[in-house]
């Protein structure tokens, strides 16, 4: 992951947390930015595979349909 990408996520996260209005420790912020950036990258490939038919409700429906009696 490029450094500038993580840095830009850090800015976004810092802005959000500033809006929340609580004091945030530097390592808290760094950890939050690194986590968000990593998960953003990892989630990209799933976004590409999803179709409009995929929804959170579909998961519940599959659990019910597949349930072994």
């Amino acid at each position: 992951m490029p450094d500038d990408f993580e840095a830009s996520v850090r800015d976004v996260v810092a802005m959000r947390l500033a809006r929340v209005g609580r004091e945030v420790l530097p390592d808290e912020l760094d950890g939050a930015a690194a986590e968000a950036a990593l998960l953003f990258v990892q989630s990209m490939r799933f976004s590409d595979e999803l179709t409009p038919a995929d929804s959170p409700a579909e998961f519940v429906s599959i659990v019910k349909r597949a349930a072994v009696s």
Partner: protein
Amino acid sequence: MIAPLHRQTIYELSAALGRRDLSAQTVTQTLLDRASTLRRLNAFIELWPERALTRAERLDKEGPRNDRPLWGVPLAHKDMFARPDRQPGCGVASEFTEARLPPSPVLAELDQAGAIDLGPLNLAEFALGTTGTNAVFGNVANPWDVARCTGASSSGSAAAVAAGLAFGSLGTDTGASVRVPASFCGVVGLMPTAGALDATGCFPLAWSLDAIGVLARTVADCALLFDVARGGEVIPSATSSSRLTIGLPDRYYTDGLDAEVASAWADAVRALEARGHKVVDVPVIEREEMRSLHRILMRTEAAAVHHRLLRQRPGDYSLAARKFITGGEGIFAVDYVNAMRARGMMLRRALETTYAKIDVLLTPTVAGLPARYDEIADPSRPDVWRSVTRLAQFTQPASYLGLPAVSVPFSLSSGGLPIGMQFIAPPGAERRLFSASLGLEAHWKGLNVWPPFAA
């Protein structure tokens, strides 16, 4: 020879209570005494001797009934459940919220069945953790080696059941929290299918992943507690005559595997084959990707649950909890929504790729053995962070997919630490999990071992 009272199974105990060979008061007092003697395990947050003995006295007066399968059986539960007269403490110092949760219907079912509640059990702060540490109430000691971690977050549940301080316990499992401590403490830990047990009245960690789980010392006891907790018919545990097709994952489950765990896994396969089960290799879907999706859901939902409280009362949170929750505040909304949308897609893929070919999947529950607390005291160290996050690597996928899974004790390491195996099944197939588990439990029972620090 009859086992000491605290080492009996729920079925054995119930038979003795039903014959009136024992009173509910005797059993309750015995366990309360043990809990006091074994305080160093730090399994309980509070003991309720008066309340438990008053209830036992009332049960003794009423007498046992066939429709109350847990009559006079002392249990204790993770402090995440609301009772009619008490809100959950969640392992933190103060009453942290003015929100009132309704009483847990699952606890009410156990109560209705005649169980006795000994008091709330220790856990990781807000159920955020996989080791057994708690900065406020102290770490829970593993009854097999008190210097070592129990696994978490249902740390008190696993330690109390393993040490014979309770005959069973409710825990919660969002990614590891019943199965990992069950494995490290040598007890059976079930995470049922998503939504199988009503989570009303349970303080959430991440509501789309949270499952109410059950811990007990035997497979049959675990099945009994599960049946009672869901308010359904009590079905006797399957017999060993059930022949199952058991899958071994063709990848992803050997990363970082401890040599003793790998050896136990191979022995478990042989034990299952010797009992007539068919064991086959089976393809599995992307484990690491599912772990990422799981983290997106867990962190975002935890951040949402704690958003206001953390702003108002940051001092009520440890730095580790603040870091975890803040991580969720930074995740993008579209990533959260897509992680929810991908859940159905991944489940469909897992059912077609893996579970269409087998009855259950067999993996180790954890890749390694329980660490010493002094080895994991500093989570800012990269090697510690890696080893702690590795604890949930084999258990998170079933949570993301909403599949039922059980950890069953199988063997002891050369250092005398329990090693558990995990079975995962399609939705609703808890019976298959119990059937498969019996094959490994027979081996564990044959070892005839008991935790040395709870003798």
